């Protein structure tokens, strides 16, 4: 049970007649840092969204800590999960979105304290103390009273990271968290993630187009294409010596576009 924290077994997901994930299988060890790369539309974002229960699946099983995500046991058989089961499973998982998804009507501090207070019953004073520590961690303690609209994209994304961390998830999902940022703001977000990667034992899955970051950050890289994993391996192998032609073609395009790997 302890050797995998996420176990994805033959998962298929369709939008109408379009298959986004096809018999997808992979598992993740606790504490592992995983980078999901691949062309757009390859299903890498969909699998993150599915883990966060933002999407449902047509077939297959996802297990978190050995427990099915979308099913639960009742009288010895598996039945579709109810809201309470999903609620309990979600406590293990946090997510940071491409477009930050901050609450625009709440100040930075309230964005971070809202969920711990509502979902875990943390007292306001405790939630705020913890939030200030997290904001300090992402370098934004001085912005606690600012409204999201007053922040730059990079600052918003760092608040979103603090907000997700406040619930102390064991698994963190990062969905193209730097894709919407101006180039000069990317680094401040990446450095926060680097710091999280080296100082916590959280399991981290990131979907990214920042290949050099994926290279330095990840323990393992999964290359997605057309709803499947085409190739996987440690970054040193996958980036420098890919065996599959689609991986080679994809990396060639990335390099041609000017990215360093």
């Amino acid at each position, binding site marked *: 049970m302890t050797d995998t924290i996420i176990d994805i077994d033959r998962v298929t997901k369709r939008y109408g007649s379009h298959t986004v994930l096809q018999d997808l299988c992979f598992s993740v060890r606790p504490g592992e840092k995983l980078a999901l790369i691949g062309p757009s539309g390859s299903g890498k974002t969909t699998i993150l969204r599915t883990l966060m229960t933002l999407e449902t699946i047509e077939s297959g099983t996802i297990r978190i800590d050995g427990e099915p995500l979308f099913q639960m046991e009742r009288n010895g058989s598996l039945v579709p999960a109810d809201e309470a089961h999903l609620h309990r499973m979600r406590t293990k998982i946090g*997510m940071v979105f491409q477009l930050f998804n901050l609450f625009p*009507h709440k100040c930075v501090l309230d964005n971070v304290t*809202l969920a711990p207070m509502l979902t875990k019953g943390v007292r306001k004073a405790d939630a705020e103390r913890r939030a200030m520590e997290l904001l300090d961690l992402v370098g934004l303690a001085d912005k606690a009273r600012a409204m999201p609209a007053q922040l730059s994209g990079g600052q918003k994304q760092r608040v979103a990271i603090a907000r997700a961390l406040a619930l102390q998830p064991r698994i963190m999902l990062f969905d193209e968290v730097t894709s919407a940022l101006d180039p000069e703001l990317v680094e401040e977000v990446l450095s926060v993630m680097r710091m999280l990667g080296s100082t916590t034992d959280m399991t981290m899955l990131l979907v990214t187009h920042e290949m050099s970051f994926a290279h330095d950050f990840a323990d393992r890289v999964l290359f997605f294409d057309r709803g499947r994993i085409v190739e996987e391996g440690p970054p040193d192998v996958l980036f420098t010596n890919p065996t599959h032609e689609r991986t080679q073609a994809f990396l060639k395009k990335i390099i041609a576009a000017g990215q360093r790997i």
Partner: protein
Amino acid sequence: MADWAGYLGLMLDGALVTAKLTVLGCALALPAAFLAGLGRLSRHSTVRALSVAYIEFFRGTSIFVQLFWAYFVLPLIGVTLTPLQAGVLALGLNVGAYGAEVVRAAVQSIGREQHEACIALNLTRWQSLRHVLLPQAAVVMVPTFCNNAIELLKATSVVSLISLSDLTFQAQVVRSQTGSTALPFLTVLVIYFAYASLISAGMKALERRMTRGLDGLRT
């Protein structure tokens, strides 16, 4: 013309009744709008059906008829209301039905990404609505609620039909007693307009307050 002060007093009494109807009508319309508007978004089909029935019934029938029902028909089944109660009931439920659609549309106008952030933060549906979606939707509702409130104010004149001496009713009284037409009706015009301006200004101030610090919603 010497009695004009007395007649003006009469009209101000009417203005007070109109103000009371407007305030109490709004006080009923607002919760009705939220209940039915959120009811339409419910996961439970019975709640949705009830909300739709309420909205369609009160939008689809005339406020006159609704008022007559409240005042003349309800007593037949043992519910006797004073003219003021009947007026408030009919006006509040009528305008509440329009407001319900405002509430529904405003909540639906909040982007999917806000819903998804709520799920990722493990909020329940009610917590998402209460703390994230409604506070943002409220900002969108205010301008249309302002319209609804002014509509309600103007609709109060129908209560003169059930012998409630509101502003319009008193103007008629003054007109029949003095034979002067222009003056009482001018006074009525001015008072309704003043009331409407008051509502408008109040709502604008509220909107400004609520949008402070926000962007991407309304400016």
